């Protein structure tokens, strides 16, 4: 074993599966490196082998097939922001990708796959993907499976990053007329927020007919409030309902994060404020 890390450059999914199956957990997939490299340079992480997935054509491209949109995991934020298909059919996602910090440089290299796999509480893409009901294809040496992103995130043994590869994301286009919003509360000039929420709402006259709300940056993983708030359906938005939404969303945050983005009690309070604000903004856009 060399003192320095080794490098593997699979040309296709078959080779990637073979490599992942044969290496120890010290191997790490690298896509844009925008999450990995800061940790490596900081001394917090030392991969034994880098698996560079940038040559695999199957991880690239954005397409529409059988009424669903596929986004290759190696798609960079800049392309998620500017792609016509995503802008017209998944405007929430292209807007959320534009709210990522780090500047144009990070948008040009950071990938949607790296953002998902990092499962970092402060990152910006997961709340929208969960609100949109994303599914993902995951490849390991035993083959490729399609799973709901929400289920994958609950599975502590997903092995993504060393034993398995995120291949692509599947998303159903947003319903025509649906209102949407992604609200990110920032208290510093840096990239990260202290609380955020993605919401998608449909209305009939002024009554809510469907509601998806996911709150991020306040706990270890984003919290899907859609079931908790499902009784908003059938009601028209009012000051009273807004207050109730805020209080119930805050109450759903059982273990709030306390870090340099703010202390736990305040984060819990902001979870409610973001959920309420995102729904309100989405309702204004619905029609």
């Amino acid at each position, binding site marked *: 074993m060399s003192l320095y890390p080794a490098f593997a450059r699979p040309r296709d999914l078959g080779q990637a599966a073979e490599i992942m199956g*044969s290496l120890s957990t010290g191997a790490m997939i690298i896509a844009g490196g925008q999450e990995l490299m800061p940790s490596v340079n900081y001394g917090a992480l030392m991969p034994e082998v880098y698996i560079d997935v940038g040559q695999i054509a199957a991880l690239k491209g954005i397409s529409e097939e059988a009424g669903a949109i596929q986004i290759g995991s190696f798609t960079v934020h800049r392309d998620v922001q500017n792609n016509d298909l995503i802008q017209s059919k998944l405007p929430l996602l292209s807007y959320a990708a534009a709210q990522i910090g780090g500047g144009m440089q990070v948008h040009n290299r950071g990938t949607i796959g790296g953002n998902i796999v990092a499962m970092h509480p402060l990152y910006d893409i997961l709340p929208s993907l969960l609100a949109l009901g994303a599914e993902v294809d995951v490849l390991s040496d035993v083959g490729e499976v399609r799973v709901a992103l929400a289920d994958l995130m609950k599975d502590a043994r997903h092995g993504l990053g060393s034993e398995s590869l995120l291949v692509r994301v599947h998303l159903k286009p947003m319903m025509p007329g649906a209102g949407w919003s992604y609200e990110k509360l920032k208290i510093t000039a840096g990239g990260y927020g202290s609380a955020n929420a993605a919401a998608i709402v449909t209305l009939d006259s002024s009554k809510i007919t469907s509601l998806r709300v996911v709150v991020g940056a306040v706990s270890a993983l984003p919290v899907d409030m859609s079931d908790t708030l499902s009784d908003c359906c059938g009601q028209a938005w009012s000051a009273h309902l807004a207050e109730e939404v805020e209080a119930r969303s805050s109450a759903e945050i059982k273990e709030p994060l306390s870090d340099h983005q703010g202390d736990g009690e305040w984060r819990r309070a902001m979870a409610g404020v973001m959920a309420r604000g995102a729904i309100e903004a989405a309702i204004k856009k619905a029609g």
Partner: protein
Amino acid sequence: MEDMLEDTVLVNLRVNGKLHELEIPAHKSLLDLLREDLNMTGTHMGCMTGHCGACTVSIDGRVAKSCITLAATLSRAKITTIEGLTEEDGTLSPIQQAFWDEAGFQCGYCAPGMLMCTAELLESNSDPSDSEIETALAGNLCRCTGYQSLKRAVKAAAVKAKEKAS
């Protein structure tokens, strides 16, 4: 399987038009490659964690922070560094001249990020607004100018670039 693992990696990079073939260790950042192997010290090291932007270069026409770019992943890429912005006769490019004229830098440490991002912005937007300039420069920190002269410099650069094009 072992034959798929490389201890060192062969990369072919075209840097400011000149081709370099290098055998590098897998963990080397593009920043270290430029500064240590190619002795091109115009690209600066500020933080190594992706926050300051002083190490910015353009890779295949898109700006990137070279400290958090693994060089081994870049085989056959075209890199432009701040040294590559000057005109062929060695004079300053319109963007560099505008930064000079408007005091767009003081110590110049942040210049790679500010200039490379301005160059990319002006390629697609010949008349950027204040907020478009802020978005384009958001990945860069400047400890000297207070950012006002930077905005002036980008606007002056837009005017100069248009003059040159017409």
